[in-house]
């Protein structure tokens, strides 16, 4: 459930509401940022910047435009991508090959209690290469349908349906 009441109070600069919003979303946003940067320290920096922006610009969110989570996602992905373009970050990361969230999940050993670690591991194991790429581009990197179809050489209409199947599988595993 989207915490509409909390969001309203956040927009009225209620600090308690801000703390609860942070508790609800910070880990997933941290994960998105980390999937782009692959660098814990840089991700911490960006995460802080993102939530400062959330505090400063909360009044610009409206449910007409979309989900609050989506609004957070956009801020986070933009901030993370900006970070990758910064000179200091480039110099530090020049040897990195293209990575995506799957690498992080495969190499990770400890998960917080919030995460269904077994489920996620199982999901990654069974996930097809195509699904990994589609989810990485659309969700973690914020590509549009069109950009994804061009990047993966996949018909535009297929992107949408293929992605649904990939996410359905995730939902099945997590629910069971």
């Amino acid at each position: 459930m989207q915490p509409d009441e909390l969001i309203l109070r956040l927009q009225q600069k209620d600090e308690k509401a801000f703390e609860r919003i942070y508790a609800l979303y910070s880990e997933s946003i941290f994960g998105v940022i980390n999937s782009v940067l692959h660098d814990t320290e840089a991700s911490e920096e960006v995460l802080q910047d993102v939530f400062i922006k959330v505090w400063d610009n909360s009044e610009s969110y409206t449910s007409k435009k979309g989900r609050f989570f989506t609004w957070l996602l956009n801020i986070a992905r933009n901030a993370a991508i900006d970070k990758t373009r910064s000179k200091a970050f480039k110099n530090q990361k020049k040897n990195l090959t293209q990575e995506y969230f799957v690498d992080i999940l495969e190499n990770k050993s400890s998960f917080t209690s919030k995460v269904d670690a077994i489920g996620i591991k199982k999901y990654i194991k069974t996930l097809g290469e195509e699904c990994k790429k589609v989810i990485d581009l659309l969700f973690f990197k914020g590509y549009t349908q069109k950009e994804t179809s061009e990047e993966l050489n996949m018909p535009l209409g297929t992107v949408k349906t293929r992605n649904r199947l990939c996410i359905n599988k995730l939902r099945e595993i997590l629910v069971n």
Partner: protein
Amino acid sequence: MDIQEYIESGILELYVYGALTQKESEEVSAILAQYPEVQQEVEQIEAALQSLSSAAAPYNPEALIAAIKSKLRNADGVIQLQPSASQKRARILSFISVAASIIFLIGIFVLLNRTNNLREELQTVEVEKTQLESKLNYSEEALQETKEILAVIRDPQVTKVPLAGQQVAPEAYVNVFWDKTSNKAYIDAMGLPEPPEGFVYQVWSLRLDPLTPTSMGLLENFSEDENKVFELENPNDSQAFGITLEPAGGSETPTMEQLYTLGVVQGNA
């Protein structure tokens, strides 16, 4: 609208990703508000995605909230943290700066005023200087002229011809200094009265037998000339010189009734 088909199309996943255009997103938001099934589906997709991305976090960043909150305070808490003492100080500072500005402006005004006065004085001095210079120039010129006249008078080559006053002006007298080598004649007209308005003295070179006058020129600006010594060309083989009063601009032939002075060159009489 077939809601199930709409859900199966996969548009809701793209909606949560933020992969739709703003217009498409707003359309989905409207449908979401209308159909609880769609709302539920979106919530489930969102929950799954949150789990997936949370798993990609290095750790749960709960502790970072303290750092974020302290940054928020630093950013927008400046006024609350600084009590009224600083405002008082700011007021004193602004008073001081206003006072300083006024003093500064007065200072500038005084300086400007003084500068203007000095400038005026300087202009006066400049004018006086120019006047003195022109006086000096004038004196030098006058001196030079006088020297030249003296040189002419002293020159043994120069023939002096005194012209005596005639019937119209018995008191008048003129000396002509005639330099035959340079064909120049210097007319010393100190003894002529001021010509009346609209008239001018004309000097004539005369041959006597038969009487043939040749105009040598006019004594222009008679009144203004202080020395009353006029330099005229005289290439003629003159036997005598005469000066008549003529209408301004001079005449072709002398008006004999207005003959003021006349004198014969010695050796030709």
